[in-house]
C-alpha cells in the first residue's frame, strides 16, 4: 500500500514537473478524443443525416398544358411506382398561380383573366441511406411519359452535398489516424523528457535494487494520468457541445441528433488508455534498458 502510494506520488510529481510538455500531450490526446468523439456521433447519425438530406431532394415535373387533372393523376400514380420514388406532390394550376405571384409580384389572373400556368408535380426520392439512388434512371423513366413537358431537378446539388458529407467523414477519419499517432508520439516524448530529467534517479534506483517494473511504474502512471485528464476534458467538452447544439440544431433544422453518452465516454476512455499505454510503454521500453 505504502509502496503504491509512493509510486503514485512519484507519477504525479513527474507530471507536475513538466507541466508544459504534459500540457501539450494532454492537448493532443484531447484533440484525438474530440475528433473520435465527433466521428462516433457522426456515424451514429449518418443514416439520419442522409435521410434528412434526401428529404430535401425533389424532381419537378411540368405537364403539357392540354393534359387534364384526371390524366395527371393517372400518370402520377405510375410515377409513384418507379423504383426510388418515395412520394409525389401534385401542384395544381391554383398552386402555380400563387408561385407566380411570389416570383413576379403580379397577379396573373388580373392581367390576362385566366391561368396559363401548367400543372406540375414534385417527385420525392426514397430517404433510406442503405439504398444508393440512381437519379439518372428515374429521370429517364420520367422522360418516357408523353404527358410530361419539362423536368427540373436540383438532384445534382443535393447529391453533391451528400458527397461532401461523406468526404467530411473520410477526412475526419484520416485526421483521426494522424492525430492518434501524433498523440502517441507526444506522450512518449513527454515521458521521455521526464525520463531524461530523472536519469540520476533511475540509475540510483537500479543500483539500489529496484526492479524494472518499479522503476517504470511512475512513468506509466504519468502517461495514464495524462490520458485520463485528456479523456475527462474531451468528454466534458463533447457532452457540453452536444447539449448545447442539440436544441439549436433542432430549432433551426428540426433535426434531432442521436447520441449515447455512455458509449461515447466508454469509447473515449478506452481510446485514451490505449494511446497513453502505447505512448508510455514506447518511451520506457526505449529509454529504460
Amino acid at each position, binding site marked *: 500500500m*505504502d509502496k503504491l*502510494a*509512493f509510486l503514485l506520488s512519484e507519477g504525479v510529481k513527474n507530471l507536475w514537473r513538466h507541466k508544459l510538455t504534459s500540457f501539450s500531450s494532454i492537448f493532443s490526446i484531447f484533440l484525438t478524443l474530440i475528433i473520435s468523439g465527433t466521428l462516433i456521433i457522426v456515424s451514429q447519425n449518418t443514416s439520419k443525416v442522409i435521410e434528412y438530406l434526401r428529404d430535401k431532394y425533389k424532381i419537378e415535373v411540368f405537364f403539357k398544358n392540354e393534359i387534364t387533372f384526371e390524366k395527371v393523376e393517372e400518370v402520377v400514380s405510375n410515377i409513384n411506382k418507379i423504383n426510388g420514388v418515395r412520394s409525389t406532390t401534385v401542384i395544381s394550376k391554383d398552386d402555380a398561380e400563387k408561385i407566380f405571384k411570389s416570383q413576379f409580384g403580379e397577379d396573373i389572373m388580373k392581367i390576362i383573366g385566366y391561368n396559363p400556368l401548367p400543372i406540375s408535380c414534385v417527385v420525392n426520392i426514397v430517404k433510406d441511406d442503405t439504398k444508393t439512388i440512381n437519379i439518372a434512371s428515374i429521370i429517364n423513366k420520367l422522360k418516357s411519359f408523353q404527358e410530361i413537358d419539362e423536368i427540373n431537378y436540383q438532384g445534382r446539388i443535393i447529391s453533391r452535398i451528400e458527397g461532401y458529407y461523406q468526404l467530411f467523414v473520410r477526412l475526419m477519419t484520416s485526421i483521426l489516424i494522424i492525430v492518434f499517432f501524433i498523440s502517441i508520439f507526444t506522450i512518449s516524448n513527454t515521458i521521455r523528457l521526464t525520463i531524461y530529467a530523472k536519469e540520476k534517479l533511475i*540509475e540510483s534506483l537500479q543500483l539500489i*535494487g529496484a526492479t524494472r517494473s518499479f522503476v517504470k511504474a511512475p512513468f506509466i502512471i504519468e502517461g495514464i494520468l495524462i490520458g485520463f485528464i485528456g479523456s475527462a476534458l474531451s468528454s466534458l467538452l463533447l457532452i457540453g457541445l452536444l447539449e448545447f447544439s442539440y436544441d439549436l440544431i433542432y430549432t433551426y433544422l428540426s433535426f434531432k441528433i442521436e447520441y449515447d453518452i455512455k458509449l461515447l465516454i466508454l469509447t473515449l476512455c478506452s481510446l485514451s488508455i490505449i494511446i497513453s499505454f502505447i505512448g508510455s510503454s514506447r518511451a520506457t521500453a526505449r529509454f529504460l534498458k
Partner: protein
Amino acid sequence: MIQLNNLSYTFEKGGGVSNIEMSMQDDEFAFLIGPTGSGKTTLLRLIYMDLLPQVGNVIIGEYDSDGIKQKQIAFMRRKVGMVFQDYHLLEDRNLFENIALPLHVIGCSKDEIVDRVKDSLDEVGLGGKESHYPGELSGGEQQRACVARAMIKEPDVILADEPTGNLDPVTSFELIKFFEEINREGTAILMASHNYNLIKGRGHRIIEIRNGSIRKS
C-alpha cells in the same frame, strides 16, 4: 559469500581488470588498496553487477553472474549495501528522501521508514540535517549520508568505495569502528581505500590491486 573466478573486464577505451581470482567469507572484513586508476572501483562494480564480466564469473550469495536476469540482479542488490565513490545522492531530494529510497524499493511501510531513517542518520552523526539537500551538505556529510543509505536496509554485504576520502581522521576512525561493529554482527565488508594509515595494524585482510590485477591477498 563472494567469489570471483578468473574475472576480466576491459573498457573499450582501455583500462579495467583482468584475471581476478578471489573469494570472501560471509563475515570477513577486507580492504582493497591500490594506486589511483588501478581498478578498485571497476572491481566493485563487477561485484554488484553494474558491469557484467567479459570473462569469468562472479558469485555473490545465491546469485551467479553467468546468465543472470535483470530482475535477479535487482534482488541481489537489495542484499548488498553500496557506498559509492561519487556518492550518487539525488540532488533534487533532501537527505531524508535520499536515505529512505532503498526502503521504498523494498516496500516498507511509512512509519517504519521514518523510524529507520532517523536511526541510521543518528548513527552516522547526521541527525537534524534531514531537510538538507545534498548541495547543502559538506563533502564529508554527503559521504556519511552515502554510508547511511548503504546501511539502512541491513545488508548482508557492504561494498564501500573510498568512504573516508572526504572525512577528517577522527571521523574516518569512527567510521571504521562502526564498520567493525557491523562486521561483528555478521555483515561482510569490502572497502576500497587509499588511507593506509587508517587500515594498517587493524588485523583485517588487505587485497592489493595494481594495473587491474591482484598482487597479494
